[in-house]
């Protein structure tokens, strides 16, 4: 009996740490790469990244690095910050929806995420180092999102946003609520006399994640955020760009995608319009059901539709990190930030490039030795 | 034993006989004096005009026509006379419009028309006096239609033209795909050709199987049917057909042969623009394009160029406004289909929509609203359908020599506030609104006492008014007494 329980417990509780190769153990070293993609659109040719104790100490032109004092790994390719996916369901094994109750504000997806799950290895293979794991959008209030590193079995945050849904997937025919009105009423009531997690939302300490599909749903979500002065982001919101001014005024960011080669022109044009209006953008994936590669592909599809490279790159890294609430830790190769970076065969914004190696918190998480 | 003898059928096919109403007495004279006479599209209107109808035909029409002393007179100084509307194609009024067999050209709607079907009564209400009844659109090759007048209790009384054409469809029948439908059409004519060739070959071989079969089936092999005739097909022919007495040809193949020989009109249904190509191809390949009329759905305006090039007229089924929805944006665009057809010089007739109040006057009025001239709009429901049916000299306008089919409107004919007050078909009064129980019911909601209004929908209202005006208390007692009687098996029969 005990063995059986231990056996079950063992599956959930295992927290492996990869310590297989030389650079795995070392937390201080340097990487010299042909091209270094820095913050914004800046690319440094012949750059170096210096890692100390798992944090970035320096990233920039190799000539200005000065005395490095650590082993230098040579990389014949590109180096950039690790990608940040602002929506994913990795590691949850599909356990994202409370089917019987529409309002579960105190639930946390962090309680479900298995940090050692193979989903995260696939994420690493796609160059993703930080992910926002979200509960299903099929409930009006489904609970709190979590932010995880894809390696090292650690939570960046166990309560990053409160996930709310304004879309009709949260409405049912045979369960309360069946209507938009009742769903909105619940949200209004929760903020009228906030307690628990809602209190943190009302005080501005916890941002919200608003799922919305059609334009009227987006309009409702934006109005709600404005009325209650909420921070956070819209999620999915395919044609939000047609309401770009409204979205901009609300201060909400938009987590778009995932897009692939079949995505309609109109959805891509929407992202471009949002960027033009100055709305912060990030991308999400529907992993593990759709590929994690969708993150980079989404950005590339938007670039095809006219999104400029700088915004595209920021939406994959720095802006995404800010939306995830980890903007001071990840998303940029700047001194003091976590040493989460990827070695690519080419420019990460070029879809023909592939991941060569991934480092999280200075530990090699993926890829072979050179 | 088939109802039609081969000789009657051949005569009908060859001549397209127009049978005047058996009810018009040989010496019947009717004079209609109307406040205004609208003769037809583009023709002058006559104020205080008189229409004299003798023996079913218009004998005189004008402002100063001398009315014979023995004529019945309809004096209607406040009404407007108008030609009866012509419905170029309809599949209503029958027991069931569609048949299961693929090639069924040997069938005739004559066997299926129900003279007391609500449709005919309703047609009079809206002023339709000539109707081409064809089988439905869910077919490959369906049977032969006929032109009827909505008057009479037997088919014979109703018949205007015994055979008006064969119905075909390029749109897949239920259960078929476009490919199988096309194949079925080709096969029908392919089978005809093979059959005729087999007949000729058998005759040359001295095999009299066909003759024996004809005799066994009791077909008439005398007179015209004993003679053979070379095939007259303009697209393809079978050599040696003159060797075969016409009576020996299988009756199931005779109508298709007549079609290929250009002797029968064809009404070809196209539900989608792509079907237009198929229909024209089949008609061309088998030599009956010159006698083809396309029956099209509104979406087929997209194939207007192709139709115009083929030079065939069309009957437009359904509403005159077609809504196109953009699959990406959901935006709706409304297209006025007759306008598009007119731009491409396609000759068209309109048809009444399924709900019978959206009748021919209604469709014509909508056309005027959408920018068509009144002349063109009226023509599309009178003279053009008449021409399409080969009855251009008989119906469609009020002119000397044409049939006396006259409507009397309470006001401007295309106005929504006007009613059809009277309908005269070939000189005989067929409809009088003041006596129309159904209209009273539609207007007031209550059927008049001791009448039963017919309904158009499946749940026809059975309005049985018992003891109208009776005191409620008395009525309750009365009903109780009736209930007791019913239990005993007696009582009023309701």
């Amino acid at each position: 009996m005990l063995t059986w329980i231990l056996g079950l417990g063992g599956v959930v509780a295992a927290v492996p740490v990869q310590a297989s190769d030389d650079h795995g153990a070392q937390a201080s070293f340097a990487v010299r790469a042909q091209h270094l993609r820095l913050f914004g659109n800046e690319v440094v040719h012949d750059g170096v990244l210096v890692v100390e104790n798992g944090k970035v100490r320096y990233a920039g032109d190799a000539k200005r690095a000065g005395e490095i004092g650590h082993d230098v790994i040579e990389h014949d390719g590109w180096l950039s910050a690790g990608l940040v996916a602002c929506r994913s369901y990795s590691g949850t094994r599909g356990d994202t929806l409370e089917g019987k109750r529409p309002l579960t504000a105190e639930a946390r997806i962090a309680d479900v995420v298995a940090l050692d799950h193979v989903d995260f290895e696939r994420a690493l293979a796609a160059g993703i180092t930080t992910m926002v794991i979200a509960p299903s959008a099929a409930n009006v209030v489904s609970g709190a999102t979590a932010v995880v590193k894809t390696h090292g079995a650690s939570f960046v945050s166990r309560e990053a946003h409160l996930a709310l849904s304004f879309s009709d997937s949260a409405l049912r025919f045979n369960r309360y609520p069946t209507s938009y009105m009742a769903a909105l009423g619940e949200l209004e009531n929760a903020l009228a006399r906030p307690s628990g997690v809602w209190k943190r939302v009302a005080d501005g300490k916890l941002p919200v994640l608003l799922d919305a599909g059609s334009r009227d749903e987006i309009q409702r979500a934006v109005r709600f955020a404005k009325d209650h002065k909420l921070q956070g982001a819209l999620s999915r919101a395919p044609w939000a760009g047609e309401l770009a001014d409204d979205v901009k005024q609300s201060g909400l960011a938009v987590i778009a995608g995932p897009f692939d080669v079949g995505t309609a022109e109109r959805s891509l044009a929407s992202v471009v319009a949002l960027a033009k209006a100055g709305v912060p953008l990030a991308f999400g994936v529907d992993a593990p059901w759709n590929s994690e590669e969708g993150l980079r592909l989404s950005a590339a599809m938007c670039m095809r539709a006219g999104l400029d490279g700088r915004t595209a790159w920021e939406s994959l890294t720095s802006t995404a990190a800010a939306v995830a609430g980890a903007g001071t830790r990840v998303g940029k190769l700047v001194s003091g930030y976590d040493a989460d970076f990827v070695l690519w065969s080419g420019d990460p914004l070029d879809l023909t490039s592939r991941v060569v190696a991934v480092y999280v918190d200075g530990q090699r998480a993926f890829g072979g030795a050179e | 034993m088939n109802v039609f003898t081969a000789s009657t059928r051949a005569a009908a096919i060859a001549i397209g006989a127009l049978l005047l109403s058996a009810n018009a007495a040989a010496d019947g004279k009717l004079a209609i004096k109307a406040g205004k006479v609208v003769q037809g599209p583009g023709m002058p209107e006559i104020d205080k005009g008189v229409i004299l109808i003798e023996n079913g035909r218009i004998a005189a029409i004008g402002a100063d026509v001398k009315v014979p002393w023995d004529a019945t007179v309809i004096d209607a100084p406040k009404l407007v006379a108008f030609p009866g509307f012509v419905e170029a194609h309809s599949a209503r009024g029958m027991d069931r419009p569609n048949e299961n067999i693929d090639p069924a050209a040997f069938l005739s709607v004559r066997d299926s028309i129900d003279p007391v079907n609500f449709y005919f009564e309703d047609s009079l209400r809206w002023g339709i006096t000539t109707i081409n009844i064809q089988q439905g659109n869910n077919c490959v090759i369906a049977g032969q239609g006929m032109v009827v007048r909505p008057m009479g209790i037997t088919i014979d009384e109703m018949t205007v033209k015994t055979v008006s054409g064969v119905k075909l469809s390029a749109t897949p029948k239920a259960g078929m795909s476009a490919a199988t439908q096309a194949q079925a059409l080709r096969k029908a004519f392919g089978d005809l050709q093979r059959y005729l060739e087999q007949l000729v070959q058998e005759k040359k071989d001295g095999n009299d199987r066909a003759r024996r079969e004809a005799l066994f089936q009791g077909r008439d092999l005398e007179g015209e049917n004993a003679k053979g005739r070379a095939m007259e097909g303009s697209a393809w022919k079978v050599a040696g057909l003159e060797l075969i007495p016409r009576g020996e040809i299988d009756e199931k193949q005779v109508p298709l042969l007549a079609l290929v020989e250009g002797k029968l009109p064809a009404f070809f249904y196209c539900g989608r623009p792509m079907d237009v190509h198929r229909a024209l191809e089949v008609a061309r390949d088998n030599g009956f394009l010159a006698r083809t009329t396309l029956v099209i759905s509104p979406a087929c305006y997209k194939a207007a160029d192709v139709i115009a090039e083929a030079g065939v007229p069309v009957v437009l089924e359904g509403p005159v406004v077609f809504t196109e929805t953009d699959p990406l944006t959901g935006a709706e665009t409304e297209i006025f289909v007759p306008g598009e057809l007119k731009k491409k010089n396609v000759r068209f007739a309109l048809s009444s929509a399924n709900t019978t109040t959206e009748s021919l006057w209604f469709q014509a009025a909508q056309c005027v609203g959408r920018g068509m001239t009144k002349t063109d709009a009226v023509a599309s429901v009178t003279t053009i359908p008449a021409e399409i049916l080969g009855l251009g000299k008989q119906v469609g306008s009020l002119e000397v020599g044409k049939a006396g089919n006259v409507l009397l409107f309470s006001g401007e004919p295309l106005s929504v506030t006007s009613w059809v007050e009277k309908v005269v078909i070939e000189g005989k009064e067929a409809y009088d609104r003041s006596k129309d129980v159904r209209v009273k019911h539609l207007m007031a909601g209550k059927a008049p006492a001791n009448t039963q209004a017919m309904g158009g929908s499946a749940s026809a209202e059975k309005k049985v008014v018992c003891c109208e005006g009776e005191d409620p208390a008395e009525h309750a007692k009365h009903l109780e007494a009736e209930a007791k009687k019913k239990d005993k098996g007696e009582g009023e029969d309701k």
Partner: protein
Amino acid sequence: MSVYFGLAIALLAGAPQEDKDRTSWTISAEWVYTAAGDAIEGGLVTVSDGKIRSVSSGDGGQLQCFAVTPGLVDLSVRIDRGWNAVEQSREVTPEMRVVQALDWFDEGWMREARSGVTTAMVNVSDRNVVGGMSVVVKTAGASPQARTVKADSVLYGAIGSAPSSSNHPAYGRPDDFYSRRPTTRMGVEWEWRKAFYDAALAQRDKSKQVAGTTELQKVLAGEFPLMIQAWTTQDIRTAVFLKEELEREGLGAPRLIVDAAAEAWREPDLLVRTKTPVVLPPFAPQGRTGEGSFFALETAAQLDAKGLLVALSGHGARQVSQRLAYQPGYAMRGGMTFDAALKTVTINPARMVGVDRRVGSLESGKDADLVLWSGKPFELSSAVIGVLVDGRLILDPRQANK
């Protein structure tokens, strides 16, 4: 009559850019029908900053047509989000506001606007006994705020078979909330009476206050009308008797309006004695229409002759011939005069829900909502060739045939 037939359903894309935002126009027509008095032959309407400035004799307007009428008002436009716009977890939900489920982007709005309907009321669907509060909106405009004419216009509900149609009696183990009362018309009526009695009780006993009580109390106080959908004779009767019972018992004096009152022709005196306005559904070709009711063609004329306030509605019909613009024509076919028919789609519905200070007639100071016709309005041989909403051109009469 068809001089102005330069018609295509040209979307505004064809109009010059500057005209799209313009809100000041002059419109002249051979006939101006104001719905507020006599028609003006050879009339000119001046529009300034989205409001009507003047209506007088004159000609030479920037926009020309054969006839002008006020923008049409439809109190039962039925453009909504279907199942997602009615809260079916309970049958009585007066506190629900349908404006929160409104899809402002629905293509139906453009369809209605192009067909001449400029003001419309959206109601909660008839799946609930008491659905909730309705909203009066313009069919076109810059934003939801700009388009809202009156929030909380009426409390809407239904009597008949619709509210009970998905409910079933408890059998076996119920797995959803549709296993509940009402399953019959009796149950529906019970819910209505209970809702009002409870609301009245809550006035004395505050502990009985629940969601929706306030709205029901306001109905009893007559603050806004109570609109009940009742197609058939017995349902209209029930609605009127409900109102009379509430009055008789001293609970209050609700202002009743009956929606989709197809069989109002049968017992008009009930409506006359309670002075109940009616909204009629679209005319049906053979008379038979919703919930098995029979809609007599002369209903509108008959009720109008008895002094009732009558409005027509289009139910958001897709088919051109069923749209609101042609319903007065059918009413005239049933014996109504033109002037009365014009009122049924303009000032009458506006008055019923209290938006007649803004819309419903062509009078100085009112919103510049106009419909331009190619011929005599409501005739099938006429078409709507121009529409203005708040002075903005939604449909441009100057577009030539393509």
